């Protein structure tokens, strides 16, 4: 009997150690989440304004820019945003569920640009053609870090093989709920943008979208110069915003997952303590029984 109490004691110890780790991870994720959320909220204003500008521009039919027109090809490029690390609950699983659904329901050749190790793994497993994979993006994401992704996406799109580019990411709604979203990135069309503006931040109030503009814009120095600068930057901003939202969601799901892991550990320790006490009591009773029966035998 003594062995069993010892084994239980060891288990309690190891569960407690695991709990310490999950607790620490929960706290780290919580603080990282706070920062990521702050950041994504801070850039929402810019993103919203930029999208409005883009939608005003794209309403003008006279303007010609390769990024405003659907591509000549018939393939679709997907930018898949997932995490680099695991232990974040259903975060990646949800992204991939949505993706699989998309792939099955669309009969088209899909090429992928992956952000995050898990995205890369998924793309390889489902035999998608991977154009590029960006892993280990810095924790403190800056617009500079996105530039590479945006450049790749835009360059590939301009080559004309693709009809459109969409991005798969997780929209941060609140700490408890995120939703996976697939939205259009290129070509820049008004429908995409109105949706993006409304969705930015998960709050679906459409009234924030600025009213119709009737008069068209003048461009300085020239239409082409402005569009050449504005459209790629705005595409970059959209990618940046998607990554920030995904980040915030990743940390929040990690926090929630680690919280429930810690709670489970608590429960387990309770159960184990109970069985430990039972085993201890049983062994004491046994001993007393042995002694008293020995005494009787004398």
């Amino acid at each position, binding site marked *: 009997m003594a062995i069993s109490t010892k084994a239980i004691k060891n288990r309690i110890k190891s569960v407690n150690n695991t709990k310490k780790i999950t607790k620490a991870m929960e706290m780290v994720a919580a603080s990282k989440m706070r920062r990521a959320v702050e*950041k994504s909220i*801070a850039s929402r204003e*810019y993103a919203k*304004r930029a999208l409005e500008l883009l939608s*005003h521009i794209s309403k003008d039919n006279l303007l010609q820019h390769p990024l405003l027109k659907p591509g000549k090809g018939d393939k679709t490029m997907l930018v898949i945003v997932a995490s680099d690390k695991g232990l974040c609950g259903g975060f990646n699983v949800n992204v991939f569920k949505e993706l699989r659904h998309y792939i099955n329901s669309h009969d088209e050749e899909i090429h992928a640009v992956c952000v995050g190790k898990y995205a890369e793994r998924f793309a390889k497993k489902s035999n998608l053609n991977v154009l590029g994979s960006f892993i280990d993006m810095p924790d403190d994401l800056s*617009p500079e870090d996105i530039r590479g992704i945006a450049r790749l996406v835009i360059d590939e799109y301009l080559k004309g093989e693709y009809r459109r580019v969409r991005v798969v990411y997780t929209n941060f709604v609140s700490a408890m709920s995120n939703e996976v979203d697939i939205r259009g990135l290129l070509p820049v069309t008004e429908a995409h943008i109105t949706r993006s503006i409304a969705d930015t931040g998960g709050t679906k109030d459409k009234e924030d979208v*600025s009213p119709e503009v009737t008069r068209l814009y003048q*461009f*300085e120095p020239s239409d082409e110069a402005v569009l050449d600068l504005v459209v790629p930057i705005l595409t970059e901003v959209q990618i940046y915003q998607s990554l920030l939202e995904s980040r915030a969601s990743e940390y929040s799901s990690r926090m929630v997952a680690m919280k429930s892991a810690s709670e489970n550990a608590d429960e387990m320790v309770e159960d184990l303590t109970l069985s430990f006490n039972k085993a201890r009591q049983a062994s004491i009773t046994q001993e007393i029984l042995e002694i008293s029966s020995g005494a009787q035998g004398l």
Partner: protein
Amino acid sequence: MKIKFKIITLERVVYQDEVDAVTIPTTDGEITVLARHTPLVAILKSGRIMVKKDGAQLLLSVSSGFVEIRQDSEVVILADTAERAEEIDIERADEARRRVEEMLKEKDKFDDLTFARMQAQLEKELARIHVGKKYRKLR
């Protein structure tokens, strides 16, 4: 009539207010926007933005980006970076400028892209120093 004026960067809303006039550096030269300006989209250049409000003047430094003037006297500036004059740390800007200048001397070592980026950085620091000094003088 006032202009609804807003400067936004990816990190924050730097400034927003109802103002009388704004002077903005664009690639085609400085423009001053008053109320009821025609809708316009222009490319921003590193430099200073001067805001006039009820006779008072306010300075800001910006680096690249663009400006959108809407029909209803609304001016939105989307900048890569922007700072109000009082926030600028001249010493640090000066040091950054010197560092970039130092690096630019060995320009053979860089590819075009890095070079262009550094040049832009230098312009940005110069604009910051300029605005910061101006502000100190005004005070």
